[in-house]
């Protein structure tokens, strides 16, 4: 297979992601943190007197350009250079997903769960809408997400970011084992 289309191994992906931390600082003293863009979009689109949102979103407009870049990067990686093969997940994960009736492996997301037609079902609503709400609510409450706490904060040896990242994983592990199987069975 052409090397342009094959997926990247973890030892290429990780350093490229980590490299953006010093890069943003060197370009203009900017700190990696994508969940902040959710707050900016709130402030830009839903003007209100909430203290959290009461700040000048234009001051941090760089981050919206960064997020726009992430979207374009997703297009280059997921469409222009799309991997024609299914994601090479482990056999045990594949067996679990088969048992949970998640059979589609054609893209990066299973279409049984993430599609316009499943949006109107209880399962799809929980996965996409409730899940999205948790992502937006939780990251703002926590003060960062996987990029701000997990990459930047850990790189800077900030102990609150270590607590946050541990709790991201703890929440995800507990939910994946204890709750998600019931949602997939709906």
């Amino acid at each position, binding site marked *: 297979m052409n090397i342009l289309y094959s997926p990247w191994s973890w030892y290429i992906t*990780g350093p*490229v992601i980590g490299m953006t931390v010093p890069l943003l600082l060197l370009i203009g*003293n900017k700190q990696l943190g994508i969940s902040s863009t959710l707050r900016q979009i709130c402030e830009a689109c839903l003007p209100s007197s909430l203290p959290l949102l009461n700040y000048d979103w234009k001051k941090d407009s760089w981050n919206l350009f960064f*997020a726009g870049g992430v979207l374009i990067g997703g297009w280059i990686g997921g469409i222009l250079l799309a991997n024609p093969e299914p994601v090479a997940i*482990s056999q045990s994960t594949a067996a679990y997903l088969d048992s949970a009736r998640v059979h589609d492996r054609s893209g990066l997301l299973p279409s049984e769960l993430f599609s316009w037609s499943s949006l109107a079902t209880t399962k799809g609503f929980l996965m996409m809408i409730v*899940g999205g709400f948790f992502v*937006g609510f939780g990251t703002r409450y926590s*003060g960062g997400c996987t990029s701000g706490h997990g990459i930047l904060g850990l790189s800077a040896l900030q102990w609150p970011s270590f607590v946050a990242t541990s709790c991201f994983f703890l929440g*995800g592990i507990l939910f994946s084992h204890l709750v998600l199987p019931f949602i997939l069975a709906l």
Partner: protein
Amino acid sequence: MKNIQYLLVGIIFGLALTKGEAISWYRIQEMFRFESFHMFGIFMTAVPTGALGLFLIRNWNLKTMEGNSIDMPVKKYHHGVIIGSLIFGFGWALTGACPGPLYAQIGSGSLVTITTLLSAIVGTWTYGRFQNYLPD
């Protein structure tokens, strides 16, 4: 002009997330079930790379391209760091995405993820609305 540079770094970041399959719901499930090293390998190489960059910036007292000083990131603890992070973990398991991958998923052709992004924006607003009633 400056913003074009941030856009370019964003493209590199989004491309790495996508080609590294870190935006894939399958990979996130695999990670939370401890059934592959892939995602852990990404974290375990990304963080030291970022840390090395920060170390060099501090050690050589590097400035920004305009010659301004660079601030080291400081993250403060509050109880939301635990509560909010757990809630985000639930959302990560459901959607297979953090905020960055939400943008990359949309770019990679999953247009329905726009609804997830909108819901995340509503979630952020809701936190702002009820912030004063929540344990800090």
